[in-house]
């Protein structure tokens, strides 16, 4: 379940892309975890994430939410909820982590992002590191922006064809880059897609197509 690991981008681009994940551990501390996870979601939400969601429910962008997304997620929170918050700067991540530490919820917290940056704000315990994409890489999209956008949803729900179609719509003036990013974010079911970064990448992509 390495859905946040293989995000592509330069070091500078990835400085604007951090995900904080909170979850319980099956058989260890999941019984009665729901209130702690709900508290964690409130903390994630307090610092205005650009996306949020529960892997077992949906993201804030997923179509069909009739009420405020976080309230909906809180209503559906359960012992095995896996909450995410996406942030665009390390300073905010530090505030989130400091508050999660102070709350002492006992839930596992994982930050997905630049190791050398995250190390500055907290001590790492275990890591999952990426060593790249191997195999028949000629099957990957030819535009690096498409790869960068698509890997922001590790479950591959943001189609490369949709990215190209939306970029063409932006180029033709039918929609804005912001609207394109919202459609892409709605494809990502667990709320780890970074729409702010996507807007920048769409604007770069339209210069090439």
């Amino acid at each position, binding site marked *: 379940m390495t859905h946040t690991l293989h995000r592509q981008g330069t070091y500078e681009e990835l400085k604007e892309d951090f995900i904080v994940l909170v979850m319980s551990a099956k058989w260890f501390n999941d019984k009665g975890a729901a209130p702690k996870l709900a508290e964690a979601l409130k903390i994630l939400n307090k610092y205005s994430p650009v996306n949020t969601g529960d892997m*077992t429910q949906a993201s804030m962008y997923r179509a069909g939410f009739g009420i405020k997304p976080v309230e909906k997620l809180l209503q559906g929170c359960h012992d095995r909820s896996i909450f995410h918050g996406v942030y665009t700067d390390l300073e905010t991540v530090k505030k989130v982590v400091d508050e999660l530490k102070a709350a002492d919820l006992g839930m596992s917290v994982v930050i997905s992002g630049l190791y050398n940056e995250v190390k500055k704000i907290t001590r790492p315990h275990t890591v999952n590191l990426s060593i790249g994409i191997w195999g028949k890489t000629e099957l990957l999209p030819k535009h690096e922006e498409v790869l960068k956008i698509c890997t922001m949803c590790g479950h591959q729900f943001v189609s490369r064809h949709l990215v190209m179609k939306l970029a063409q719509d932006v180029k033709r003036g039918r929609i804005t880059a912001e609207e394109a990013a919202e459609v892409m974010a709605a494809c990502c079911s667990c709320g780890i897609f970074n729409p702010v970064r996507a807007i920048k990448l769409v604007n770069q992509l339209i210069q090439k197509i």
Partner: protein
Amino acid sequence: MYINPAKCVACTHCVPYCPTSAIQIVSEAGRTFAKIDEDKCVECWICYRVARCPKDAFEPTPPEKMPFVRRLKFFFASATAVWPETGMAGRGTEEMKTNDVTGRFKFGEIGFALDMGRPTGVGVRVSDVEKMCKAIAPYVVFEMENPVTKLLIDPKTGEVRSPELRNVYLLSAVVEAKTSKELAPKVLEIVREVSKELNTVISVGLVCRVKPDGEPEAYEVLRQVGIEPRPNMKINIGLGKPFVGWE
């Protein structure tokens, strides 16, 4: 997934949403409509859930009523569905995300997370997953809670349970295993060689503990085989309880 041809007006709105290009516009018996290529369809339901057909032509089969192969595709594509066998949402396990509590990965151990078929909807056939599993099986211990491991007849051999599985096309499959730090370079070399023979891509990840000086233990392995890690990682920061400890 099924598109009702009587409702579809071939507007093509849904076509780009499909990560694996499984939706085609066809003409049959004087009508033009969108049709699902059942082989390429991985049952991710993005077309149904997100594209939102203006004619309501998409008619998914509930997973409990799906034939076995379609159900397999569905669970290997869904991020939210909870596997009946593992109790986990998604395609893998908790792996290192709860390692501060479970202690699943210890110092001296290297975990492998081979995301086969990722990224960008390349997808993977089970036959390719089996090739990889068979190649690394002598040197690793597969994660027993992982959905791929559940497909194997014997984790010691890496062989899949049934020949009919081999041709099944999945959105992705995460092979999860671990080995000793000493054997890890050999496993990496095997993965690198096997990946050249496959008709797919693999997003390769390693899991390890972080030494007191802040260096991930896997760096020693990567130096031996001459591979640079990417700068971004998933980082468990040790807030879970009961805590297994830093050392």
